[in-house]
């Protein structure tokens, strides 16, 4: 356990040698997350827990989901003071066996009331582990096109996830209309600030309601290169 802790500190130290995340969610018990988090869809519960795994010594966020044929997306919404970013990193612990495939990606939403743009725009990143190009016009983001589900932490341990913007954007929705990103969308990324970022956890359409299952989330960090 000490070796893993030391290794994680080395990893953290390496991150800080390069840059400092300007916004973070480490799920500390002292912070009131009821004012910063919302859940919807197949997400049935969230709570701050200590020591979710033998290797974890600090608090993390335990998310519980229950998918059904009608509801195959669990959503965790981070409410933010509108911020600009170009990278979000976090860690996920997936205690579920490979027989329960889970896919996750991020969506960043800009409200139409913000100054940068009067439209409601969301940018969705590719699924974790998906290295395919952005889908063609008319082919929307869904788990079927992702290359692989989230690995099980029984083999992979804590899974680091890094999402870069705009490079990892594969879908844009403007006032509800979805399309692949265009060149101008990606070039104008830095003019946007986002009041919400959502973690979307999905599965391929189950025929019946799944048993409740959980994921653990920690070290959510937002970066912006100067």
């Amino acid at each position, binding site marked *: 356990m000490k070796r893993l802790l030391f290794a994680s500190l080395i990893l953290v130290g390496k991150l800080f040698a390069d840059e400092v995340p300007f916004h973070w969610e480490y799920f500390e018990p002292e912070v009131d997350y*009821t*004012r910063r988090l919302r859940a919807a869809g197949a997400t049935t519960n969230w709570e701050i827990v200590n020591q979710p795994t033998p290797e974890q010594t600090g608090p993390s966020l335990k998310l519980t989901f229950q998918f059904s044929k009608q509801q195959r997306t669990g959503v965790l919404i981070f409410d933010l*003071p*509108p911020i*600009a970013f170009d990278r979000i990193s976090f860690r996920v612990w997936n205690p579920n066996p490979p027989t329960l495939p889970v896919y996750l990606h991020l969506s960043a939403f800009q409200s139409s009331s913000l100054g940068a743009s009067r439209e409601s725009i969301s940018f969705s990143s590719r699924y974790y582990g998906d290295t395919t190009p952005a889908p063609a016009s008319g082919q929307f983001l869904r788990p079927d096109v992702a290359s692989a589900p989230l690995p099980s932490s029984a083999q992979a341990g804590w899974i680091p996830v890094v999402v870069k913007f705009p490079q990892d954007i594969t879908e844009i929705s403007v006032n509800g209309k979805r399309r692949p990103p265009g060149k101008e969308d990606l070039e104008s990324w*830095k003019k946007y*600030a986002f009041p919400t970022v959502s973690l979307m956890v999905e599965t391929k359409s189950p025929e019946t309601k799944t048993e409740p299952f959980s994921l653990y989330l920690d070290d959510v960090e937002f970066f912006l290169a*100067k």
Partner: protein
Amino acid sequence: MKPSPLARNLFLSCFVATCACAAPPPKSGAVGQPLGIKALSKHVPEMIYYIYDWGDGTWTPSGRVAGDTGMDLEHIWRAPGEYPARWMAMSISGRGSEWHPVPVSIKGGGLAPKMETIPVRSATSGQKPVNSAHPERTSKVMGVLNWQSAGSDSPLVRNWLSLEFGVPRAVGWIVLTRHAKEPFPEFFAIEYSMDGGKRWHPVMNAVFAFFPDPGKNAVWIPLNGVMADAIRITTPRATRLTSGKFGMALGSVQVVAAPPPAFSSSSSATKLGLWNNLWLNYGVAANEVFSKNNPWWQTDRPLDGGALGIGSCEWLFWDASKITWMPGNPEAETLRNYIRNNPVGADGYAWPSPGSDKHLGHSRHIVTNAIYPMAVAQVYLQTRDKGFLELKDPKTGESVLDKARRAMDYQLKTLGGSTGLLTITDPEIDGTPASKGNNYWDFWLFGGQSAYDNAFFYESLRWMAGLEEAVGNETRAAELRALRPLVKQRFNETFWDEAKGRFIGWIDKDGKRYDYGFTFVNLPAVAWGLADADRGKQILDWLDGKRTVAGDTSTGKDIYSFGFAPRTNTLDADAGSPPMVNTWNGALKIKAGGNAEFGKQIQNGGAIFYVSYYDLMARLRAGGIANAMARMDGILDEAAKDEIRRDPANMEGHSDIVGILREFPESGLVPLFFLNGVLGLEPTANGLRIHPALPPGWKDAAVRNYAYAGNKLLIITATGIVSPLVSRSGDILTIQVPPGGDWLLTPDGKIGPWKESVQ
């Protein structure tokens, strides 16, 4: 090679110090006089805060605002001279603007106000790793000059330095300087405690990221009079120190006192501290984040908090109640403009918003015809400013007074109020399942004959009668007053449910009655005198769980399960068929598991804080001051936990379970119970009524800086005062009255017994 911490901060300062801006001509001011400097930076889209360098060795940072929003801060220079003032903006992601020079020329002749430092009884430092279950470590600090925390290998350590006063004090500023050798904290926030450090609360406008190196400047952070018995500076992320380790370091920390707070009593310093902070947060909203730098506009999660007011008609009376008693408040002018500009149509219907005769483009709100004259009357009777009544609508040229009169006539004639009962005949709001909502509580299909609207009608008759009498129209005043007994009679005949022992919500055009246990109907009705003693007691007994209404969803202690207010309704919206609610085209789902199920929606089993004001006033009237104060104590207990800064979300992603923050400036009515309940202050036709009711165990109560008829008052009631007395010292008129009496202070400053006949 990693840069040293000082070098890093200097680098940051250099980065933001690059300036290609030509200095404008100097602004002129005088010693001791506040001078404002406007700043506007649109250099980034995300949230920013401004830093003002006043050129006199002091800096002041602002709260956070949206990236395209300006700032206007004032400063008082303490000596004559030429000062190289300047400002910059820093984004919360660390992108700083240039420094913009604004030179200032200060002439002598005035005196700067004295500053009192709050003595610190003890100091404590603490550390806790951020991402760990390790407990915090604290230690006593013997001196705060050139203090630094223990270093840690990781920046992921929360450090803090707290200063304990021993007793609650009103805090004006906290002043920080850089350590002689170590860098200034880059990320820090100010928090306060009212229980010696057991619980800490954020000062929402005192949270800073990527703070630049202030050098030798002292950083003055405004705290606007927050009541605290301890203050702490906390860094959520440690700064790299010269040793290479991470920690926090400060050269000095000074806490400057604010003037004493508005509400005072010798009864309990902690209780009054919490009470004053409720006013600070939800009344004047002095330390809240306003993303548009405008206290009339809401800020979204997670920075939502208290607000000053909303300019739509539905809120104007509440806005006036909050603002008009504060002397010199610049927002009084904004309020006057909202009232002046609010349209009253040719038919006398008072529009709910300046741009539309329908609220949010959805439906007409008939209650605005009561609210508009109430707001006009409140402002005039409090200020006695005839110029306000003569303000002209910019579109029609009609005066505010005439618009109030026509709105009143709309109630009396168009809505049938002269018969003693308002009836809404608009087919869109007839109270049937096909109806639309027609008031603040627009989830519910109030319409037809609405108890909510009729209660407001009854109260508006009182206010408008007072206004008419005050301007010399005594005949009209008498007519309005004479109608009140009939309105009260018909209200009770029409809306009282003898079996349930409470007032129902409304009766639709077909005569069907609807009751869902509406606390927001019953409590104002009791507070405004519509319930006699027996019915008032029945209502309080229902809410206090002393009796159960058969069929209700929430009974007993569950009615107050939120703690800060009763549930909106005690019978689930899903109990009736068809449900008498507006689901906004199916967006709101009231069935179990839906996003608006009972207890998960502000208007269905949730709670809205402002209702507590009417709860307190109702208890005062129907149960006595001890009853009301017991409820207030419960509210203060909730405030002690977390300032009632609550905005939870249900599992449908909606954060509409409770209504306290964001678009609920009426939350600020609750602390006004000190003025309107405990001190019994009420502006009336012939003067300010003062009808104190000291809670059990209280020997005195006082309000400072109470604006009335152009005067600034200090009003005191105390057990040792045997007869009323008015005295003047400078610009303060001091009014002393015995508790338990009923007095009238005339606009020209004479005090005598309140006479029932002139009401």
